[in-house]
C-alpha cells in the first residue's frame, strides 16, 4: 500500500480574540465561515474565484491601516482579525444603504432564484432599507428579451458580476459580459442582443447565483400568486445519467420550479436547461391519469385498476398456457427507479423461470 500524503500545512491565527487553525491557502472569509462568523457578502459565491467587488466582507487586521476584503485576503500565520467591530458594522450598513438605494425593489419573491433573497436579508439584518441615499437606479432591465426562461431585470442589478463569473468559470460558456463602467455598468451579451442569439445555453446558473433577483426564473415566477409556502424536496434530475441533485420547489401540491443543489455530489450547483427548466411535463394535462384497456371495437378506453390489472394478468397467463413460458418478455425502463427494474426482472425470473428480460440501453 502506498501511503498518500494528506496532511496539509496547518497554522494558527486569532479570530475575534480566539485562536483558530487554518490550512495554507484559505482566505480569511473561509476561515471565518468555518467558525460561523456570518460575515456579510454579496459578490461571494464559494464556487467562484474571489472577486472583491462589493467590499461588504471587510474585516480589521492588526497592523493594517485599512480594513481588507476578507474574501480575497489569504489567512497568514499569527494574523489577528476582527470581523465585526462597531466601525466595520457601521461601514457595512452605509454600503448596504447605498446599494439598496439603487434598486427598484428589495422585496423580491424567492421564486426568482436560489440566491435571490441575499440582498434583502442583509438589508434587513443591518436595518439598511431607510432610503438615505435615494439615488438614481443603475442598470436597465432588458425586457425585450422575450426568452421564456430568464428574466433580465437589471434595474435590480448591483454589479456583483456573479452571473458573468458563474457563466465563465462554472458553465464555461462566456455568454454574458460587462459593458461600461461605474454607475453605467450593465450586464450584456455579445452585441447587446438576446440570450438566444448569444452563446447562452439556458443552464440557469446565472439566475441561481444572482443575489438580488435581477436575473430570475420566469417559469417559477408563474407561481408567485399561488397561495402557500414554498417547500423544497431533495431529488435527482430525471434526464441524463450525470444524476444532478435538485431541490424540487412546490407550493401545496403544485410543482413550481427547480433549484440546483449546491451540495449535490454530481453537479455542485450546476444544472442544464433540461434539469433547470423542463420540469412541467410532470403535471401536464397529457399525463395518463387512469389505466386504459383496449375494448372490443379496438379502442383504448378508461378502466379501473382492478379491471386493467386483471386484463393485463390474463393476457400473460393465456400466453404462458398456450405458448409456454418462453413466449413472455419484459423490458425494464432506464427512467424509472431501480425498484421498478428489480421487480420487472423478478416478475420474469420468479414468475416464468426465464431470463427473458432486458432494458432500453440497447437503443
Amino acid at each position, binding site marked *: 500500500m502506498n501511503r498518500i500524503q494528506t496532511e496539509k500545512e496547518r497554522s494558527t491565527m486569532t479570530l475575534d480574540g480566539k485562536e483558530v487553525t487554518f490550512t495554507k491557502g484559505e482566505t480569511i472569509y473561509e476561515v471565518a465561515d468555518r467558525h460561523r462568523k456570518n460575515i456579510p457578502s454579496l459578490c461571494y459565491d464559494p464556487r467562484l474565484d474571489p472577486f472583491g467587488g462589493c467590499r461588504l466582507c471587510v474585516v480589521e487586521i492588526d497592523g493594517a491601516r485599512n480594513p481588507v476584503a476578507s474574501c480575497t485576503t489569504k489567512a497568514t500565520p499569527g494574523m489577528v482579525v476582527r470581523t465585526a467591530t462597531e466601525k466595520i458594522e457601521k461601514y457595512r450598513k452605509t454600503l448596504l444603504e447605498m446599494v439598496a438605494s439603487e434598486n427598484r425593489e428589495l422585496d423580491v419573491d424567492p421564486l426568482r432564484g436560489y440566491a435571490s433573497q441575499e440582498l434583502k436579508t442583509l438589508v434587513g439584518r443591518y436595518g439598511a432599507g431607510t432610503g438615505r441615499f435615494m439615488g438614481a437606479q443603475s442598470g436597465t432591465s432588458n425586457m425585450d428579451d422575450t426568452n421564456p426562461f430568464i428574466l433580465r431585470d437589471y434595474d435590480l442589478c448591483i454589479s456583483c458580476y456573479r452571473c458573468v463569473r458563474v457563466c465563465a468559470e462554472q458553465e464555461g460558456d462566456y455568454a454574458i459580459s460587462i459593458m461600461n463602467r461605474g454607475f453605467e455598468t450593465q450586464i450584456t451579451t455579445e452585441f447587446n442582443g438576446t440570450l438566444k442569439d448569444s452563446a447562452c445555453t439556458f443552464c440557469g446558473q446565472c439566475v441561481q447565483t444572482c443575489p438580488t433577483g435581477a436575473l430570475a426564473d420566469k417559469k417559477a415566477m408563474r407561481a408567485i400568486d399561488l397561495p402557500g409556502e414554498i417547500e423544497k424536496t431533495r431529488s435527482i434530475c430525471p434526464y441524463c445519467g450525470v444524476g444532478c441533485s435538485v431541490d424540487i420547489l412546490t407550493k401545496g401540491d403544485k410543482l413550481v420550479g427547480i433549484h440546483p443543489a449546491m451540495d449535490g455530489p454530481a453537479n455542485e450547483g450546476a444544472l442544464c436547461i433540461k434539469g433547470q427548466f423542463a420540469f412541467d411535463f410532470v403535471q401536464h394535462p397529457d399525463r395518463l391519469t387512469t389505466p386504459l384497456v383496449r375494448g372490443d371495437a379496438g379502442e383504448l378506453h378508461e378502466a379501473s385498476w382492478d379491471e386493467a390489472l386483471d386484463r393485463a394478468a390474463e393476457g400473460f397467463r393465456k400466453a404462458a398456457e398456450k405458448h409456454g413460458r418462453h413466449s413472455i418478455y419484459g423490458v425494464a425502463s432506464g427512467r424509472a427507479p*431501480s425498484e421498478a427494474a428489480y421487480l420487472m426482472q423478478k416478475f420474469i425470473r420468479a414468475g416464468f423461470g426465464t431470463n427473458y428480460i432486458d432494458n432500453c440501453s440497447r437503443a
Partner: protein
Amino acid sequence: MSNPLVDMEKPDVIFCIGTNMTECHPVAATRLKKAIARGAKLIVADPRRIELADISDLYLPLRVGSDVVLLLAMAHVIAREGLIDREFIEHRTTKGDAFLEHVVEFTPKWAEEITGVPAKDIETAAIWYGMADKAAIYYTLGITEHICGVDNVQSLCNLVLMTGNIGREGTGINPMRGQNNIQGVGDSGALPNSYPGFQAVTDPENQAKFTELYGTEIDLENGITKVTALDFCGDQIRAMLIDGENTLLSDPDRMHCEHALKSLDHLVVIDIFLTDTAQLADVVLPATAFGETDGVCTNTERRVQRVRAAVSPMGEAKPDWWIVCQLAKCLGFQGFDFASPKEVFNELCRVSPIYAGLDWDRIDKSEYQWPVPDKAHAGTPRLHEVEFVNGRGIFSIVRYRDPAETVSEEFPVWLTTGRRLQSYHTRTQTGRAQGIDYLLSEEALEVHPDDVEAWGLSNGEWCQMSSARGSVKIRVKATKRSPRGTVFASFSFSDVPVNILTGSGYDPITQTAELKVCPVRVELA
C-alpha cells in the same frame, strides 16, 4: 465510468470520442471545461464538428464507423514511440505481447486512407495520450451504437492498458450513461445475461441462489435480448410487458418495430404518457413521474442516490414498483408482498454483492458509489485501483470491419444520428415543457453548405431522405458542423421519425443497433 465525475477536472490529456458531451451531458462537460481552463489538452474525435471540437486542441474528424482504425493506429504510434507503461503491462495485464505485435501493421498512413484523418494528427493524438501522466477517455453512444461497438470499446481499453491510464485520479475509461437510471436498471438485473448485481445467469451457483430466493427454477442459459425478442414477436414471443420506453421512436427500424409489437397477442405498457408505443398496447398502466416517486437511481459514476416524491401522483397514477407487484400478485406469483420502495430496494441490496453494504437509509445522502461489498466499506469512487475485476486486464486483438451498409451509388451519403441539448430522447418529457419550443421547434437535417448546393437543396426547405428501409421528409439546415458527404439528424421528433431509416445492423455480441451509421440518399422533396 471507471472514475468519478470529479476526476473530470483532473486529467492532463482528455480524449473524447463519440461523445457530444456539451449537448448530451452538459453538466459533466462543464467539468471538462474547467480542466481545459486549467491547461489540460483536449483531443476530440467525431465525424461532426460538434461544440467540443471547437474548444479542442486537436480535432480528428473521422469518417463515421471508422473508430477502430483510428484507435489501432494510435496504439501503433504509442508502441512505436516507446510510450507504453511496461510495468503496468507486466503486472496488471495479459496478452500484451500479442497485441503489440498485432498493431505493428496499422500505420497512421493506412488509417488516414480509411478515416480521412491526416496521419500527422493521428501521430500527435497518440503522442499526447501516450505521454500524459494522467490521460482520461470519455465516450458515449458514438462508440457503442455500431455493429463493431464491442470492438470500439475494446480498442479504447487497449489504449488504456498499454499506457496504464486506469485506477488513478484523472485517468480511466469513462462511458457516459444516457438516461437517469440506465446504470441502475442494469445493476438491478434487468438484463438477459445477469441477475441483480451483474451475477451471471449461466453460473450454476448463482442459479441455485436465485432459485432458492425466488422459489422457482430459473433457466441456466442467457435469455434473448430485446432486439432478438422483437424479431421473434408473433412467433415465439407472444406477450410483452414494457415499462416506460417509447420503443417505436427510440429503436431502429420503426416499421419492423411497429410490425413486431402489433403482432403480439398481448402488450402491456407502463408509462406516464400515451406514447406511440403505448397506443399499440392492450393495457396501458399509468405510472408516477419524477417528483411523484420515492426510489433509488444510480448515476453514470455508480453513485446510488435517492429520488423523492414532492407532490401527489396525477390522477390514479401509481409507482412502477407497485404496478409490477400487483400484476405479479394477480398471476399468483410469490414474493411480491412489498409495502414500500424501501422494502424493495433493501431486498435488491441483500441479493447483489455490489450493493451488499447499502440499504435505503444509508444512501440518504448520496455518499456511496458501488461496489460497496459490506457495511464497513466506504464505496468505490475509482475502479481498478489495485486489481481488475477478473484479476488482469486482457488486451484484445481487434480488426476493422466495414459498417453493415456502406455508401453506394444508390445511397451515397452517410447519415449519423444523435441527440440535441434542448430535447431529451423521444421528447415525451421535454416536448411537454413550456418554452423548449422557443429554442427547438422542429427537427432539421444538418448538411454541409457545399452539399446543399451540390445536391440542389436549399437551406430551410424540405428534402426527402431515403435508406434501404424507408424514407422521411425533413427540413434542410446548412451547417459546417456536418462534414461533406455526411448528414446528421436527431431521433427526437415523432413527425420526423428518423428511425424509419436506421437499423442496418447490430453488434453481434451486445446486439446494440448501428444507429450511428446509415447510408442514405438525399434529394429535393
